[in-house]
């Protein structure tokens, strides 16, 4: 829940960068225009959320999902956003899959590492045993000499 009204604002620096990248180079954007677009963006989020929530309710679901947001865009007459959003969703899913695989790989590597460490340990133990045997042998030899 938002504690203060400014919690509902989006960061001006990011908004300004998005506007600048969308417009031709050298266009002057007045300060008033920037804050107006920023406010409009917050209202857009609320509008989209409300529309998406209607679709979730129709589907008797409590959690908003990706398809609710896509349906909301159509309802709001922002069909032009649907294709790029689907692309972004694919990219996001690829990224998540990549992360999951990476963490699984990491886990595997870790397991392998502990395995090899254990092997090293047991090898060391073997060495100890060998040394002891050698000592014994030497002792035996000495005894033999004595005899």
């Amino acid at each position, binding site marked *: *829940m*938002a504690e203060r009204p400014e*919690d*509902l604002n*989006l*960061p001006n620096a*990011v*908004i300004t*960068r*998005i*506007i600048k*990248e*969308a*417009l*031709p180079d*050298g*266009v*002057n*954007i*007045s300060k*008033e*225009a920037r804050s*107006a*677009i920023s*406010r*409009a*963006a*917050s*209202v*857009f*989020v*609320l*509008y*989209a*959320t*409300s529309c*998406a*929530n209607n679709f979730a309710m129709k589907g008797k679901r*409590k*959690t*908003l*999902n*990706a398809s*609710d*947001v*896509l349906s909301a*865009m159509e309802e*709001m*007459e*922002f069909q*032009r*956003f649907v294709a*790029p*959003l689907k692309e*972004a*969703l694919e*990219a*996001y*899913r690829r*990224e998540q899959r990549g992360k999951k695989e990476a963490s699984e790989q990491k886990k595997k590597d870790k397991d392998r590492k502990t395995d090899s460490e254990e092997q090293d340990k047991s090898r060391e133990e073997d060495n100890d045993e060998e040394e002891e045997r050698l000592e014994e042998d030497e002792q035996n030899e000495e005894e033999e000499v004595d005899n």
Partner: protein
Amino acid sequence: MVVGRDKCGEQRLVSLPLSRIRVIMKSSPEVSSINQEALVLTAKATELFVQYLATYSYRHGSGKEKKALTYHDLSNTAEESETFQFLADILPKKILASKYLKMLKEQKQEEEEEEENSNDDESDEAES
């Protein structure tokens, strides 16, 4: 397409902060929970919206010769475009104070005239 970069210099999917987007979404009382994909998509959609609102207002605006985007261009968009109609309340058309006072005066006069008329009606009724 706007892409942000994180600290490692890798391309990020969205440049708007997801935590802030979530706070705004959650400020809507009927929303109980939002999954991560819906959050990412809403953030991305907001970026597309900012781009679209800016370019649309610039192209249809008056500042093209001066290479400028002004508040006036935006409030014009909200008033004239069907798609951006929902912004009309937060992007009201600006008018001069003198013009507004004149409007108020005219409104008052109209009301007074109406009152006079209704007074007339009442007196008519009283007479009949």
